[in-house]
């Protein structure tokens, strides 16, 4: 049984299908990357799976249960965690308290347990010396770290990462890849939206290529990288690829 099973997913914006009859599965322990040109419907897919957007058709099953209609907060509690492409820390809380929020509500921890969890995760992502800093003073890389720590605090079984590498320097990128490998080693299943192809190659077991809201191809990194349809979709449309 797949951990996440999406079938026939449809979402339209003013009649235009941003996600069009999309089906895919993520097996437990796997790392799956979703790639595709800008506007392919990757982030919309994340919003549908995390429950921030309602579906116009299709079903989403998580651990065998139909979660298509359940609200976002209960999906988080069921084990679907995520980060956002544009990081949005809670401004009136410091780094530590930001992470505590995730543990308190996403993982239903007591205040004491949430503090302990937050301490551990802040060390893990390398924000130990900034634990009591305000979030407005953080650099982009640190904000991304915080975003990851906060998502991990909800104790996800499936963690969806929306372009965590975006805007990082090559060194920071390498650190991030190492960090994600650690997270994966703890048994967390990862679903990534990623533009940086080296990250996709290094991390993912399986790659899903989207274009115009549809699945264009899927398979191992090597398979999709040599797929003529994929090359055609990317040529001249996305310089990063």
């Amino acid at each position: 049984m797949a951990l996440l099973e999406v079938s026939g997913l449809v979402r339209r914006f003013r009649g235009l299908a941003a996600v069009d009859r999309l089906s895919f599965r993520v097996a437990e322990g796997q790392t799956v990357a979703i790639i595709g040109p800008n506007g392919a419907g990757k982030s919309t897919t994340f919003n549908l799976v995390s429950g921030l957007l309602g579906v116009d058709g299709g079903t989403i099953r998580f651990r065998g249960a139909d979660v298509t209609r359940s609200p976002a907060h209960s999906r988080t509690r069921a084990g679907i965690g995520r980060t956002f492409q544009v990081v949005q820390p809670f401004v009136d809380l410091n780094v530590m308290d930001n992470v505590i929020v995730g543990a308190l509500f996403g993982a239903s921890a007591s205040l004491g347990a949430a503090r302990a969890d937050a301490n551990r995760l802040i060390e893990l992502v390398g924000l130990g010396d900034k634990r009591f800093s305000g979030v407005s003073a953080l650099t982009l890389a640190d904000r991304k770290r915080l975003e990851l720590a906060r998502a991990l605090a909800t104790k996800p079984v499936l963690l969806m990462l929306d372009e965590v590498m975006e805007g990082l320097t090559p060194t920071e990128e390498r650190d991030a890849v190492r960090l994600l490998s650690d997270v994966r080693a703890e048994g967390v299943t990862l679903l990534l939206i990623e533009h940086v192809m080296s990250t996709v190659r290094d991390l993912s077991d399986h790659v899903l290529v989207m274009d115009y809201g549809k699945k264009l191809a899927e398979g191992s990194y090597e398979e999709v990288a040599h797929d003529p349809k994929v090359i055609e979709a990317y040529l001249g449309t996305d310089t990063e690829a």
Partner: protein
Amino acid sequence: MRRNLIAWAVFIAAVAVLPWLGVSNDRYLMLLANVMLMFMTLALSWDVVARTGQLSLAHGAFFGLGAYGVAIAHRTWALHPLVGIVIAACAVATVALALGVVTLRLRGIYFAIATLAFAEVLRTVALQFPDFTGGTVGIAMPPLFDGDRVLSYYLIGAIFVLALATSLAVRWTRLHYAVTAIRANETVAQVMGIDVVRVKVVLFVASATLAGLAGAFYMPFITHTDPNDAFDIGRSVASLVFPIFGGLYTTAGPVIGTILMRSLEEYLRVTPPWKEGYQVVYGLVIVVAVLFMPRGLLGLVQDLRLKRPDRRWAWRFSR
């Protein structure tokens, strides 16, 4: 946290002994003290909703609903005001629950407009059913505790302590994390596992009930209510101006803001030469305060203590 709670215990003790510092026989000062506690309750209750990032313009209406609850209970069933207050509080809680479930999915300005409309609807309803509400004339009832202003002071004091406890609970429990996250970003708060609508509805109902209790006290205290007084928008405005002046999202802010603003208003009202146009002066003070200390008095004190180089003013904030 402990120091904070001790400070509030001292404050409550001071409030409790106030009538015995030679004030209890002065009916004018006791009137001011009663009304002061009533407005502190309103300000604290409004701030609880503000912490979830919602601007309520319905608090004056909940106040009025509480007032009418007691009045109607007296007129229709001849119930004692203390029984009437309990009934009124239940009625306000029910109405607030219905309003909250419908409107708290709205964000920002839309919620504010919905609550404003609600207040107007209540006023119109009160005018349209004179058999029940007394129409424009309103309802009169005998004075609370036969006009004993010390007893009434302890009644509103108890209601104030309830509001204070609610405000402190929102600060010192897991609710603090929930509301601060919701205020910053509702979408992210959901993804962190917070049942955003439920938190907002629960706090809205608690807050409205406190405002209703204040109104349910006020009606028998001044012995009369009518639609224009009960649903006066000015009271909604007061319940948000005091916390903003004192310092939003805190417990001390609304309390200090109410004490200073109410004292100033009363002073201007009775002292020549301000007497005539005191509302103009009062209004100017509010404008200046909002421009120069957008985080309220507490924010200003904090800035001065930390000697922050750039004290942010409202016009810089608005960018």
